């Protein structure tokens, strides 16, 4: 219990108390406190347990760089947020926070036994320790490690919050509202352009919030900006990433700082900002020092102690020792002293310290130990003293203290600069990388540009120590429990690049992304390798700058708004009939229409039997449709499709097969020639946009000489398939102006006329093998025509059928579904569609590829039918096929099942499969090994029903 509330000072409102709980215990703070400052004021130094060793950990920093004090905040069901940094959690009434990664409690953590055996958890221990036996990884090691090593728990229920999103444009975007950012915003605002100033903290001011001397200026500047209409100030907003051309994404936290009762509206808002100029004023983060015991609760950054004292009115200890290698540590010590914090000593590894700092310390009666380094810290859950030694190895002295502040110099925050692909240069004075060049209209100001006077210091956070590096317990990355010796070990084991050292040690890979550890790790690696840091490189910064909720990134795009759901004009009717749906591409399609207590199998069997024996009605409106118009329309299609089109007479239809230039099937569909210069094309439901794009591509870029227009008409036409021996009788009374007789209207033809008094393009086509019509009517009449056909159909015992029945019926006929029976490596010949390739055509898309050596080679996978020996067994689609079931594992797979159904018509199962050399295997028995048994099946022609096609005529 060493932290306490100072008698005065800070920006907190001492008249307004805030009650909250931490680990179930009632606590209080003031309005304006962070969770960290309120708990420190109560003397709480222990905040969490470390990731790997479960070591007790306290506060390190006062900002988003905090690696240790991660907490879970619970705002009710589905509103539990783990891994929040205690210094960045604003205090509000009723806040419920808990510590993480401890069992059973923070103070007595049983798993901390890890710490005792920490010698067994060196760098790469996951890779080394748990390699054998292999099977034990999944069942034994991984579950144990997952329990031991961890962060907070994710919520298990749905997030009830909603998240807002917006676009914004401005002439100048300033990221970071410290003194440099505010100055940049004022300057930009003076020119009259729109300015957005964003800052991640509860109030704007950045470093000035921890410097009372700047408060008057800060208040005036803030008021001046707030008064300008063209300036938008966004506090509690984190710029999480800079993307191309000054596109910055920022997340504004709208309600988390309020009590649950006060919170209204969206929880967060994602800002997508396009700015003419971006000014980065992101400041700098102080670096910890690397010495034995630097992770004992109470050892923290000097800048953090300064912020707690001057901004929150909290002293982090009663006897505070400052360990500095940088002037800023002295400045902070003096500021703390002035604020009433007892500074017991300033230790500095350097001997040549600026005389004015030494003089000021002497005046403040602070003991100074130049040339010394802290070599040990007493205490485990709180600091109980420190040992210092001359140059780390010489004369030893013990200091009585309850807090140790580290001043290891500053690391400019260049994250967004790096997102923008800005280059960095090493600066010896800073001991850090500074922004160098960029092609964006982007600049850095203030500390992140290296343009801030923190004083001078040593570069390199590793303090000299009496112990050799490999025995040291000095931490570099607090959140991932990486020690200096782990980095030494990685180098010893042959890792040279910082990218490899990072991944092997996990240095900088925790949720803080190495904000306090990257440069120390780099410099330790540099020291061990005896090579300059610039030769070892710097790991790449990637968005987000700090952890970001998925909610804000998703915005409104969830649940029903996740993606558009396309519905046909007949969809409502199907819903009223109790259809069960499936999604096909973005379409919602009726899959089957159960009657009474029917399951899918029963409904599909009934629908299939009805189509084959009477008539079925099917909503085929989702078929892709393209209107191809122009004098060169036939020539264009002739070049696109494998089939000949020029010879097709108006009024006739043709099955078209579309290949890619690589020779593989990418789409198919029946198309009709309505007039010499007009075609009505159909594509697969999922392929419509892709096919249109491909056709536009050829038309615009390869054959711009052709006079053709392509128009997507998918949603302009409702398509009602009427299939079955009674199909003609169903539509006959509704159709006007079209002779439906078989002679006048043969299979694969199209007629224009009227149905139910509206225009129709009536196709006589069949995807079922039965006599069939596809009634195309303008979409606005689709529902009316459907209902008329349905009413007529009912007189003939019609059934409405869905996509599942459509699949079974077409499989009985061996008709393929592109994307199910083909997979992007199937040629027309492989699919048994060689007949659809125009042999006399000089060229079409993909023709040349059909002569490639591996396309004409024997042994290609070919589409065949499979009949299981047990007729009631339905194979699993995707199941692998082998020739010899007794061969040793891994077996040689010769193909897979592409389509498989129970056929009610045939009273047995049927399947289609792609099998190597399949057409030469007719009659052969092949085997399908499944987890519980091996199924045998005979290879047959993929045509199971009415091979002669007599049923097409009803």
């Amino acid at each position, binding site marked *: 219990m060493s932290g306490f509330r100072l008698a005065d000072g800070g920006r907190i409102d001492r008249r307004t108390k805030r009650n909250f709980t931490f680990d179930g215990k009632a606590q209080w703070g003031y309005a304006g406190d962070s969770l960290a400052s309120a708990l420190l004021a109560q003397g709480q130094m222990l905040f969490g347990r470390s990731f790997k060793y479960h070591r007790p950990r306290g506060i390190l920093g006062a900002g988003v760089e905090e690696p240790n004090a991660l907490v879970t905040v619970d705002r009710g069901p589905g509103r539990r947020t783990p891994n929040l940094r205690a210094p960045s959690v604003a205090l509000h009434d009723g806040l419920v926070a808990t510590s993480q990664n401890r069992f059973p409690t923070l103070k007595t953590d049983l798993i901390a036994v890890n710490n005792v055996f920490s010698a067994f958890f060196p760098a790469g221990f996951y890779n080394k320790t748990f390699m054998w036996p292999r099977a034990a990884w999944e069942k034994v090691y991984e579950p144990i490690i997952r329990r031991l090593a961890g962060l907070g728990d994710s919520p298990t229920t749905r997030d009830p919050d909603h998240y807002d999103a917006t676009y914004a444009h401005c002439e100048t975007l300033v990221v970071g509202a410290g003194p440099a950012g505010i100055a940049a915003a004022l300057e930009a605002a003076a020119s009259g352009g729109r300015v957005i100033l964003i800052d991640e903290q509860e109030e704007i001011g950045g470093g000035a919030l921890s410097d009372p001397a700047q408060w008057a200026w800060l208040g005036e500047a803030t008021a001046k900006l707030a008064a300008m209409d063209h300036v938008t100030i966004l506090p509690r907003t984190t710029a999480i990433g800079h993307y*191309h*051309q000054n596109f910055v994404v920022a997340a504004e936290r709208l309600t988390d700082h309020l009590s649950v009762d006060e919170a209204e509206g969206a929880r967060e808002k994602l800002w997508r900002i*396009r700015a003419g100029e971006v000014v980065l004023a992101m400041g700098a983060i102080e670096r910890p020092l690397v010495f034995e015991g630097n992770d004992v609760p109470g050892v923290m950054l000097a800048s953090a102690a300064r912020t707690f004292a001057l901004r929150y009115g909290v002293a982090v200890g009663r006897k505070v020792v400052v360990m500095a290698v940088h002037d800023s540590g002295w400045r902070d010590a003096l500021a703390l002293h002035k604020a009433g914090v007892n500074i017991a000593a300033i230790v500095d590894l350097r001997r040549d310290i600026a005389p004015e700092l030494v003089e000021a310390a002497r005046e403040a009666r602070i003991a100074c130990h130049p040339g010394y380094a802290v070599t040990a810290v007493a205490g485990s859950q709180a600091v109980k003293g420190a040992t210092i030694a001359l140059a780390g190895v010489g004369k030893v002295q013990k200091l009585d203290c309850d807090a140790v502040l580290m001043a290891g110099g500053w690391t400019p925050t260049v994250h967004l600069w790096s997102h923008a692909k800005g280059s960095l240069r090493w600066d010896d004075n800073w001991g850090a990388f500074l922004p160098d060049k960029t092609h964006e209209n982007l600049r850095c100001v203030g500390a992140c540009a290296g343009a801030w006077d923190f004083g001078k210091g040593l570069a390199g956070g590793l303090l000299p120590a009496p112990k050799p590096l490999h025995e040291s317990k000095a931490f570099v990355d607090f959140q991932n429990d990486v020690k200096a010796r782990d980095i030494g070990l990685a180098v010893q084991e042959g890792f040279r690049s910082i990218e490899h050292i990072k991944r092997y040690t996990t240095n900088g890979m925790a949720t803080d992304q190495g904000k306090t550890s990257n440069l120390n790790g780099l410099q330790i690696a540099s020291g061990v390798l005896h090579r300059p840091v610039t030769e070892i490189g710097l790991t790449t910064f990637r968005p987000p700058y700090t952890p970001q909720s998925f909610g804000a990134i998703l915005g409104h795009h969830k649940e029903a708004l996740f993606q558009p759901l396309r519905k046909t004009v007949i969809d409502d009717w199907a819903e009223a009939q109790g259809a069960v749906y499936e999604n096909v591409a973005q379409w919602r399609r009726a899959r089957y229409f159960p009657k009474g207590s029917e399951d899918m199998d029963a409904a599909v069997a009934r629908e299939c039997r009805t189509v084959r024996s009477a008539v079925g009605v099917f909503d085929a409106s989702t078929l892709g449709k393209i209107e191809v118009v122009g004098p060169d329309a036939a020539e264009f299609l002739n070049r696109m499709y494998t089939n000949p089109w020029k010879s097709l007479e108006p009024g006739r239809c043709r099955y078209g097969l579309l290949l890619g*230039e690589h020779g593989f099937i990418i789409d198919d569909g029946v198309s009709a020639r309505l007039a010499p210069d007009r075609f009505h094309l159909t594509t697969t439901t999922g392929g419509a946009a892709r096919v249109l794009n491909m056709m*536009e591509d050829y038309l615009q*870029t390869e054959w711009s000489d052709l006079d053709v227009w392509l128009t997507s008409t998918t949603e302009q036409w409702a398509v009602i398939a009427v299939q079955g021996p009674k199909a003609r009788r169903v539509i006959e009374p509704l159709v006007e102006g079209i002779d439906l007789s078989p002679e006048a209207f043969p299979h694969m033809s199209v007629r224009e006329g009227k149905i139910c008094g509206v225009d129709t393009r009536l196709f006589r086509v069949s995807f079922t093998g039965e006599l069939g019509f596809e009634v195309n009517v303008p979409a606005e009449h689709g529902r009316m025509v459907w209902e008329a056909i349905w009413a007529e159909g009912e007189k003939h015992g019609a059934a409405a059928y869905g996509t599942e029945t459509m699949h079974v019926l077409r499989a009985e006929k061996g008709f393929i579904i592109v994307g199910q029976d083909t997979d992007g490596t199937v040629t027309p010949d492989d699919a048994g569609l060689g007949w659809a390739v125009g042999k006399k055509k000089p060229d079409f898309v993909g023709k040349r*590829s059909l002569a490639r*050596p591996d396309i004409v080679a024997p042994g290609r996978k070919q589409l065949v039918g499979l009949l299981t020996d047990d007729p009631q067994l339905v194979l699993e689609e995707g199941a692998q096929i082998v020739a010899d079931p007794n061969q040793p594992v891994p077996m040689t797979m010769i193909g897979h099942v592409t389509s498989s159904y129970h056929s009610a018509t045939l009273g047995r199962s049927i399947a289609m499969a792609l099998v190597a050399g399949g057409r030469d295997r007719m009659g052969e028995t092949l085997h399908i090994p499944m987890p519980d048994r091996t199924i045998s099946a005979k290879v047959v022609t993929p045509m199971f029903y009415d091979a002669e096609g007599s049923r097409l005529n009803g």
Partner: protein
Amino acid sequence: MLLIHCPYCEEARPEVEFVYGGEAHIARPVDPSTYSDEQWEEFLYIRSNPRGRHHERWRHTHGCGRFFNAVRDTVTDVFETTYKAGEARK
């Protein structure tokens, strides 16, 4: 998100309106049957993949629908220029 200048609309529009179309200036042979297997392989699959200036195709799918060509630096993603399909390589 990139801003891309459509040479037909003569406007810079956000990337979401466009679809990338692969390397530019790879003309389909007038008569592919005259191509050897090696030449056809080259046409189908071999791309330059440069570090730096890259000539590439884009389509203003959710705009005018036109295909056009662009020169983009593959390191910086900066567009040097965009120009209409059919115009000479820039």
